[in-house]
């Protein structure tokens, strides 16, 4: 009896999901037939470069038009880091089995400077080319992660203490908000960089696009420190 019941339940679940899928399929089919207006994005594409000074429109959307979202997601990372950090035990846990060959050890050591350069590049050229604070921050976070993998958690935390990480994270987040507040001091609204005319410069140059590079930097610091903290917490977990 219970087996029949089980099979029935399984089919019931599959049926549910299938129904949903088919339903959504029809909805998508219907949506495809509509003609769609895109005046907002057209405005961004035609005016965005002049208004924000950033060539990379995604960056200009992320840090200027919709900078508030970015603040929100930075907060999400901070929250995640905080969550993981209180869940970890105080005592140090041995790094799990990392017995790589010498080649990997050496490679990692060599790779680290390149990662620094790459991360910084991604951060600072975020408004000109693909990349930006998030990606660059993650690349920077790779460094402590690699150090941890290579030399174990004790060494890694000795070099870059957890406290410093949270300090960096806090500085990044506060910096982001303070940069945003510059807009208010300049007589405009919060997070205004394009509208407040912070030296938009010539689009395409490194020092251009107003506050965007600095915002990128702050997010980079924050994300890097946050993700490194998350990683270390996860390693120590349990």
């Amino acid at each position, binding site marked *: 009896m219970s087996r029949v019941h089980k099979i029935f339940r399984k089919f019931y*679940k599959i049926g*549910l*999901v299938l*129904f*949903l899928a088919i*339903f959504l399929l029809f909805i998508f089919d219907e949506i495809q037939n509509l003609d769609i207006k895109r005046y907002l994005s057209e405005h961004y594409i035609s005016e965005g470069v002049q208004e924000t000074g950033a060539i990379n429109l995604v960056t200009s959307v992320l840090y200027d038009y919709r900078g508030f979202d970015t603040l929100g997601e930075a907060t999400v990372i901070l929250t995640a880091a905080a969550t993981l950090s209180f869940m970890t035990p105080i005592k140090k846990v041995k790094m799990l089995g990392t017995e790589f060959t010498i080649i990997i050890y050496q490679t990692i050591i060599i790779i680290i400077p390149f990662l620094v350069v790459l991360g910084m590049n991604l951060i600072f050229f975020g408004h000109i080319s693909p990349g930006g604070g998030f990606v660059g921050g993650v690349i920077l976070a790779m460094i402590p992660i690699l150090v941890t993998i290579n030399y174990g958690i004790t060494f890694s935390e000795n070099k870059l203490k957890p406290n410093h990480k949270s300090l960096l994270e806090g500085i990044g987040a506060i910096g982001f908000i303070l940069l945003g507040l510059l807009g208010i001091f300049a007589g405009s609204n919060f997070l205004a960089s394009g509208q407040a005319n912070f030296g938009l410069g010539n689009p395409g140059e490194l020092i251009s696009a107003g506050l965007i590079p600095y915002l990128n930097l702050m997010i980079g610091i924050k994300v890097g420190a946050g993700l490194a903290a998350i990683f270390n917490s996860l390693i120590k977990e349990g």
Partner: protein
Amino acid sequence: MITPGFLYLAGALFLFLAINNKIKYIISFLITTGALIITFYLTPGYSLEINFLNYTLIPFRVDDISKLTGLIFTLSGLAAVFYSINISSRSNLQLIFLFIGSSLTVVFTGDLFILYIFWELMEISSSFLIITVSDLTKKTGYYFFLMQAVGGLSLLWGVFLNHSATGSLSLNAIEAGIPFFMIAVGIKLAFIGLHTWMPQTYSKVPFYVTVVLSIYTTKVGVYVMYRLLSGINILAYAGLISALFGIVMALRQNQVRKLLSYSIITQVGYMIIGISIGSAAGITGAFFHLINHILYKTVLFMVAGVVIYTTGKENLEDLGILGSKLPITSLATLVAFMAISGVPFFNGYMSKTIIKEALQEPVLIWGLNLMSFGTSLMFLKFIYYAFFQNSNINLNRKPTISMQLGLGFLTIIMLLIGINPFLLENLTNIDVDINYFDIKLMLSGIQPFLWSVIVFILLKKYLVKEYRRFIYYDIYREMAKIFVKIGYKLSIYHNGKLSKYLLWATTTLIILLSLLI
């Protein structure tokens, strides 16, 4: 002008200041007598309006009937407070004040909103009084509160129905929701089928709480019935049935206070009949009966209280102590017995006569006679145990002076009304136009009493027999069991499995989406 009800409510707050007994006495005395005096000088026709939310409310309105009811309420409030002031703790005294105050406010209100609020406040305060007063009354209090809450909520639903039908909250325009008003009032009146809360509550709580509760709970029901449901003739038969049921049940009891509470059901039957007739005479009779009933039933409960206080027991056999050792109490018992049986020259006679004169239909008249007969029968049982049975129980302690004061005070008023029935009429400017001391009336009034004496002597061995076992079936408890069972089944389904919960969620989504198709 200030409502006597608010005076009591304020008194409940002032009692926080009562650090020692002296202040407590002073505050209680000032509040109770003050309320009595204020009520005495109220002028009918006065009304007060306030704005609340979007409504115009009338928290205070005086007319003849409400003044009459208010008078007896404040009077018996004075007696009840002094009866219990020594025994009750401060917080319980506050609850008693709250209870009395809200019932007085109900009496003087002019609209359904305020009526509902103070109806509920009565219910809350009385329930908490029952719950906190003793360790043995927790379950009773639970039952009482739930039962009363059903009443309150059906009153509320009736208010809503009426409000949506008429668009007004006035007490005078009742068009819809009458069945729900009936349920609400029925529960307060302990109508047959809805009475289950009453005997168990009145017999379990400490005696002074019984005194306070018995004065107000059912009587406010009578008053509200007059306001909301007067003139529905069918209800007269219902009242008759309820009263006869009360008689049958009362005759089977062997506990004093259970007997008294079933007798309340019977007495309330008179008032239901009086109000249901709808004529001015009927209503006047009902309210005079209300006054008389409050007087003698309070005295009887006080007597029961004295017995409990002095002996610590409350079976009918223990009443024997009245005959010899407590003279004042015995006298009061006799007076109350005569009054409740409707013997001429006692106060019960006058109101019963008014109601009987107002009746037209022979069935009801015979029913009324039967009720009088039954009432005196059950109280003959009471008297038999009190005076004709030898007992050798000793007093544990003497009744307090305040108890005897309260008792004696009410007995004297009762005698006054009985000897001069026109006192009430003069007091309230209501003219009934009945000569109470007409021989024919007196004969028909005393007939049931005499018959009952004869029947009691003949059937004594059946009537005083102890019915320890009788079938007790409470439909409300069965309903509660079903509710608990359903809840248990539901809680089994919450078995902590995340996948099950997610399945519920997805099914909900499917149901939602399939509503689209």
